[in-house]
């Protein structure tokens, strides 16, 4: 992103080559969370698992419905439409996995770290929903106020990893 605005001095295209890396980044992120949570998966009750899956499904439907009208009204190309939905939905997949981690470690010292991970992903969920919405409305620009949410997410991730190494 910085390459477009600071080096090439052009308006940030969307989608761009950067989106390949953003989307690709979800794979190791999801695998990392999944492997960690699966290791302790037997500590989860069926009720907690079912509620988390239900919550993820409901949120995915709500977010998709909320974005449907503005995205389709914007008459964007198919790749852009896919990206508009992909970011928030992939964030929700991460959030539901991280939520399982929080449930498992809630009574332990690792709770703090998992709370921060969840807070960080939640920031990304909000930021990506707003990003998709403002992009569809033609209101987004590099440095928009909503970018603060992405920065906050990074900050929470940093704090989560620090707390994790401190507690474990």
């Amino acid at each position, binding site marked *: 992103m910085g390459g477009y605005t600071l080096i090439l001095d052009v308006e940030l295209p969307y989608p761009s080559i950067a989106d390949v890396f953003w989307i690709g980044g979800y794979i190791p992120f999801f695998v990392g969370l999944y492997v960690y949570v699966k*290791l*302790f998966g*037997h500590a989860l009750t069926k009720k907690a698992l079912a509620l988390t899956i239900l919550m993820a499904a409901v949120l995915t439907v709500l977010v998709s419905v909320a974005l449907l009208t503005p995205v389709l009204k914007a008459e964007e190309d198919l790749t852009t439409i896919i990206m508009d939905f992909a970011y928030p939905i992939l964030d929700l997949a991460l959030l539901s996995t991280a939520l399982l981690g929080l449930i498992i470690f*809630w009574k*332990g*010292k*690792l709770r703090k770290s998992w709370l921060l991970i969840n807070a960080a992903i939640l920031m990304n969920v909000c930021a990506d929903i707003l990003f998709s919405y403002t992009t569809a409305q033609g209101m987004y620009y590099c440095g928009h106020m909503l970018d603060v949410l992405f920065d906050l997410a990074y900050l929470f991730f940093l704090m989560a990893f620090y707390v994790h190494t401190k*507690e474990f």
Partner: protein
Amino acid sequence: MEILKKALAEAIDEGLLMLGESGRDVIYFRLKQSYALKKEDVPGNPEIFVNCLREIFGSGAEVIERAVIKKLYDKLGIEFKEKKDFGFMEYLNEARKALEKG
């Protein structure tokens, strides 16, 4: 009950490997730092070991405890059967009784 202590020491060492070698080292470090318990004294103080795990992992500790107990039963040649409301200490007591019976 030296057999039980020796088997438990090995089972804890192997069971904790599910966290990786560095994870296992962290648990031993925590036991020493927070509970003044050296690695070789852990089998004689299983309650402290369980408390330490629960303090760090919360409900997730059950998974590590189960891995350790399964290793222990395997080493003692006892068949492991899942029992409702059985925790680490209950399984350990059952193993002790089984050894006493011979």
